[in-house]
């Protein structure tokens, strides 16, 4: 890939090998990996890469170099170094995701920011009369909370309506999801309305499922949806991303989750069109009107260093067998293996089949824990963090009337799941600690109603 040949910035050397140690093998050893993540709290079973991601020391070092360049002579850096560095990052990403043109790739802080950009645009269309009141935005009910609030702030406020599609969960096939989505689109079109925007997660957050995003986008096109926004916060570094194949109008993914960047950086892809795209960064600078990619490259004095290290990340992932593809594959396989180990130990289930998981898996918690609310889930999570040094998010599955739910080996209904993540720094022991923590709670007849206080 051309990206492999890119260098990071100017003359700074990013070779982090200890010059005294000859390179014995091409790939990182286990001890190298531990060293790269030595800043992680060693006592903690950190099985939640999905929430906040991780960043290896080599990339942090590269980031420091960029920060130092700015601090050393900020004017010089601003005039001569910054934009080139950002363009280099964008070019690497553009190659990686198969975009047609690097102009289609902007760098923003995170998916939350991209959502605001898209929804502000939709909001303007309503305000300025291009969309009719009550025209709809369709999304899944488990869309990330920030996105829902953004819809409230920008769309509902100006008269747009929303349709939430319930994601079947636990889920066993893509068809279930596609059918539910079609129904949702139909609702969105009822009474002569137009579906102006469909928001589809590539990988939902909670509960976590790999969605059939290509099929869903196709359905959108068939059903006359005006624009499709794929919120793929977790995608890059988890699953292959080909924006042309996926075919969405907007696609955003965080690089600090699964792509080893420091907080925070996301790429925001906006498919080129014949007409001018009325998307703008909400923080308006003198670059306003020069296209989103240029607008985003300067939103006032900031620390842009996390957006400049993408070439360094490519160097890092190349030190793994199979590069990022190898990492993704092994993360998936290990996560599934650990998931199966856990549901076997607990007598529960996986939330989705292995082919609908990435480096994250949902595993049912024993019914005996009596997770009966979101608060219980939060309590259990806090207990695990404080008393067992296990960091794992817990999801409460509220069953609706008439739903039977899935039963565990004790014939109780499974009302909660944990979402385990597997990244290169994880070890089997991390998941065994989780396993034992839950098993012991059940053995001690603990429930969410009588957990030790944190």
């Amino acid at each position, binding site marked *: 890939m051309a990206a492999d040949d890119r260098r990071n910035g100017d003359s700074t050397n990013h070779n982090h090998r200890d010059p005294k140690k000859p390179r014995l093998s091409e790939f990182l050893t286990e001890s190298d990996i531990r060293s790269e993540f*030595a*800043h*992680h*709290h060693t006592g903690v079973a*950190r099985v939640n890469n999905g*929430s*906040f*991601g*991780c*960043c290896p*020391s080599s990339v*942090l*070092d590269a980031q*420091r*170099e960029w920060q*130092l360049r*700015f*601090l*050393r*002579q*900020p*004017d*010089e850096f*601003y005039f001569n170094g910054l934009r080139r560095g950002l363009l280099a990052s964008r070019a690497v990403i553009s190659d990686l995701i198969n975009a047609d043109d690097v102009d289609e790739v902007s760098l923003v*802080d*995170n998916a*939350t*920011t991209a959502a*605001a950009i898209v*929804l*502000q645009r939709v909001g303007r269309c309503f*305000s300025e009369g291009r969309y009719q009141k009550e025209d709809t935005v369709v999304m899944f009910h488990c869309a990330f*909370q*920030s996105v829902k*609030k*953004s819809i*409230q*702030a*920008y769309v509902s406020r100006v008269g747009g309506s929303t349709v939430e599609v319930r994601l079947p969960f636990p889920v066993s096939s893509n068809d279930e999801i596609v059918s539910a989505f079609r129904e949702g689109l139909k609702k969105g079109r009822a009474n002569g309305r137009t579906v102006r925007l469909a928001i589809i997660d590539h990988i939902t957050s909670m509960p976590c499922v790999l969605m059939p995003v290509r099929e869903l986008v196709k359905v959108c096109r068939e059903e006359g949806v005006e624009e499709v926004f794929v919120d793929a916060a977790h995608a890059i570094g988890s699953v292959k991303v080909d924006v042309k194949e996926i075919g969405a109008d907007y696609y955003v993914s*965080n690089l*600090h989750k699964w792509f080893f960047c*420091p*907080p*925070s950086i996301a790429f925001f892809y906006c498919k080129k069109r014949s007409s001018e795209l009325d998307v*703008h960064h*909400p*923080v*308006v*600078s*003198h*670059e*306003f009107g020069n296209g989103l990619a240029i607008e985003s490259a300067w*939103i*006032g*004095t*900031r*620390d842009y260093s996390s957006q400049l290290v993408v070439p360094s990340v490519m160097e890092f992932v190349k030190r793994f067998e199979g590069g990022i593809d190898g990492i993704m594959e092994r993360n998936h396989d290990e996560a599934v293996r650990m998931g199966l180990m856990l549901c076997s130990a607990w007598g529960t289930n996986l939330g989705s089949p292995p082919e609908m998981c990435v480096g994250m898996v949902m595993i049912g918690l024993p019914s005996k824990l009596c997770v009966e609310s979101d608060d219980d889930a939060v309590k259990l999570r*806090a207990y695990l*963090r404080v008393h067992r040094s296990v*960091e794992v998010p817990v999801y409460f599955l509220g069953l609706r009337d008439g739903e039977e739910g899935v039963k565990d080996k004790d014939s109780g209904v499974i009302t909660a799941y944990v979402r385990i993540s597997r990244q290169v720094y994880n070890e089997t022991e991390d998941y065994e600690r989780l396993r034992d923590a839950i098993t012991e709670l059940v053995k001690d007849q603990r429930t969410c109603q009588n957990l030790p206080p944190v």
Partner: protein
Amino acid sequence: MASLSPPEETAAAAASFHHRRSKRYSSSTTNGVEPVPDKRHKISPPPSFISPSEIESEFSHHDPAFARINNGSFGSCPSSVIAAQRDWQLRFLRQPDRFFFDELKPNISASRAAIKRIINAEHEDEVSIVDNATTAAAIVLQQTAWAFREGRFDRGDAVVMLHYAFGSVKKSVEAYVSRSGGEVIEVQLPFPVNSAEEIINRFRTGLALGKANGRKVRLALIDHVTSMPSVVIPIKELVKICREEGVDQVFVDAAHGIGCVDVDMKEIGADFYTSNLHKWFFAPPSVAFLYCKRSGGDAGGNLHHPVVSHEYGNGLAVESTWVGTRDYSAQLVVPSILEFVNRFEGGIDGIKRRNHESVVEMGEMLVKSWGTQLGCPPEMCASMVMVGLPVSLGVSSETDAVRLRNLLRERFSIEIPTYFRPPGQGEGEIDSITGYVRISYQVYNKPEEYHRLKDAVNELVRDGFKCSSLTG
């Protein structure tokens, strides 16, 4: 002016106090390294003020080749504060979930509490922390735009701003106000300026224009210290005039405020006031505060951070504490900054005073050598001043000014912004000065740097240099 009391340290901050004080910034520092014991505590007090060599050490990461006399553009950050920032970054990286759930919010609150004290705000709710003044402008202008869109303001109602407002702010006004139906009035200010009265009079005229034909002036957007050309605006008087003239809201853009001029919210009396801490208050990039006066008015319900998160609706200050996963470390070092400035005699007030005296002294030295003039009287500048360039250089356009700046950087290793002042604005001016430089003075600066500038320009003059000879 509110006095600086010692920072209240959270338990977390106290625990890492010694840890932070012992760290020095260096690009070879690795993560998780054991802290070097703080030798000062062994030698022992009483604490004296920071010495010149300690100041040099705090800014040793600055490029030594350069005469860095442009603190105004991008500010500066001492090593101790950078080290404190690193600590915060490391805490997130170490265990991000725990950091998010247990540490982030209380420590942002600590920063906000410190700022509230410094700026004499009534209540912490009035203090939000955002990335920079550019972001603050978007927040304020977005609420103005909503009012236009939702019919609370009539189409054609006016927003009044200074002609010298920052470029990004002008674009933000275009993006939010013009687009939603507001009319923008720009008040021309004189430059060079001779007295605060000149500015006050022009502003009154601008307001009158805004109110013409029965319109209402919905927002006055006023700089506390203009960027280019740089002048300290008589902000208290202008806010008073706004109130007299029935302006709905006053928004003070004080990007250069805190650490540069006196920032007392109650005295100034604006509805919104924003200032960058990374310019003159020793913060790393980037962190700013946006003050929003609590009032019975509508603003409360309509002020939102444009990046909407799950905190939406909980008030701007809380919304701003979480705008998605980000590096919030620059927002967490305010207590460490206070430790730093309190090592100087007189704290931040002493620093401001000495910066002002030094920049005026250096400005007058340059003016004398070049035979030119300052852009304003000394009492209308703070820690920056505009200094006229010799007419013979022939600065005749903005392009000339930019190219001259590049020349100074590339040939003389001097970093200084230049300004083209179109001729003929004044009355009966002959040989009017069309080029100015804006010199800044911060604690790390030394007179030699300004002498280098003096000599460079004199050399150009001696060589018969003309801007017209510059290309690219």
